[in-house]
């Protein structure tokens, strides 16, 4: 299927990717090519076939409810771009 520029911009926004005007066009073209190839899946008869995503094999592995006793602060902040006290710092979020 051929994507519109608007659709490409919308998807980029959903994915938090910033595309320049020319990138939007390039992506539109490349994604459309791939989507066209993917479209042939519509021809496959899957009536009554369950999606594999619903059949993740294996038994439930559940762990006992025990809390780790060490503080995770050091590990958690080990690669933080910006820290204040023991919190991550980001630009002000307006809610």
């Amino acid at each position, binding site marked *: 299927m051929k*994507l519109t520029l608007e*659709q*490409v911009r919308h*998807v*980029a926004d*959903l*994915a*938090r*990717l*910033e*595309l320049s005007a020319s990138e939007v066009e390039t*992506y539109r073209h*490349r*994604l459309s*090519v*791939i*989507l066209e*190839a*993917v479209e*042939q*899946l*519509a021809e*496959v008869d*899957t009536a009554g*076939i*369950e*999606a*594999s*995503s*619903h*059949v*993740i*094999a*294996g*038994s*439930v*592995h559940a*762990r006992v409810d025990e809390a780790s006793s060490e503080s995770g602060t*050091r*590990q*958690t902040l*080990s*690669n*933080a*771009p*910006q820290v204040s006290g023991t919190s*991550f710092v*980001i*630009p002000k*979020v307006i809610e």
Partner: protein
Amino acid sequence: MTGLLEAAASLSSAQRTSVELTQASLEAIERDDGAVKSFLRLDPEGAMAAARASDERRVQGRALGPLDGLPLALKDNILTEGLETTAGSKILKGFKPPFDATVTRKLREAGAVIIGKTNLDEFAMGSSTEASAFQKTHNPYDLTRTPGGSSGGSAAAVAAGMVGGALGSDTGGSIRQPASFTNTVGLKPTWGRVSRWGVVAFASSLDQVGTLTRTVADAAVLLEAISGFDANDSTSADLPKPGAQAGLEAGVRGLTIGLPDEYFVAGLDPEIERAVRAAAAQYEALGATVKRISLPHTRHALATYYVIACSEASSNLGRYDGVRYGHRTADPKTLRELYNKSRSEGFGDEVKRRIMLGTFALSAGYYDAYYVKAQRVRTLIKRDFDEAFKTVDVILSPTSPVAPWALGEKLDDPLAMYLADVMTLPTSLAGLPAVSVPAGFTANHLPIGAQVVGPAWGEALILRVARALERETRFFEKGPHRAGV
């Protein structure tokens, strides 16, 4: 550099020490990797410390097992505590994991010496290692060509003799295809056989850590060390280890081997077809029955794979946002800027393309037609294999339809690159174990690999079948020209 088992024998017979092996490895890398560029970084201090510890243990009679003291390399999407791990991406440049992946821990516990981290296509998305944000890796058998991908660095390092073995990851063929391009053995275990904890996720329902080695026996040893249930990975199987070494030499007499019609179609390089059919003939001569089978939904595997892999990838890569680790854009004024710029600056083109595709396939209005549909077709693909395994023990096919291409050749055509994976994708979708084993060379000396696929948990069987071919043909003995020459 010899294989793992040979090196292990030299250690136990005290002919060599781990320190010597490790130094030799570092020297080989120093000498050859300028041309091959398989390593992103080395850890000489850590490696030498591990080597000394290993020698110490051995002297005291406390050697840990076959891998104790052997230098190995890890693909750079496998976390190593304290040692930068980038997944080949700028968005993780400088990221120092605060913990080891389970497979890393297991190798350390086995006494292995981790020499360094190898190059890959960014986030394991690619078939040539050209999509790495940092460098292109060259095929030791022809430096102008790709070693395949995404585990190109690990495959090249093993092929060039810099290490005896390496770990890679395989989502759609990323171990097997580079193995076939570099005359090495590349094993993708059954999904769930090896823990994914600490492995940078690309497509969760497809990713598996596997092995790159010179020989099948080495693959068996390395597989044994990394397999097993992990409480940190809810999808890891609670099963006994594969134990593939035991029956490795049992041969193929009495086994039935299937050749799928759908893999021998136009588009398959005639030299590759010849080599794989020769392998089939070889198996027959050894007492196996070879028959034709059909995997009717094969032609849908590419589309199915791309929808599912990209969807899961778009989800898994949502965490790279510049907030808690990884690249953060300079001086973001708003949250939007923080996200959009950090991600756009940090991700390469191929990654962005796949994120876009995946986001689209999951988005409102398209989810059923794309993602759900693909998952249904996936079920049909799995059933093809289930059916086939009712009449054959293993399936034999080419690993790649084409021989290693020249670096830069396929970059403009998105589909061409994707088509390189058609032979390996179906087994990934079905979660089955598969190994690529050397099957010969093209007229211009480029390696060709044959793929052996088994039923779920059938690693021992496929390695045994691969070994039978290896024993007869000994293709692994033909090393690359000295890299750099």
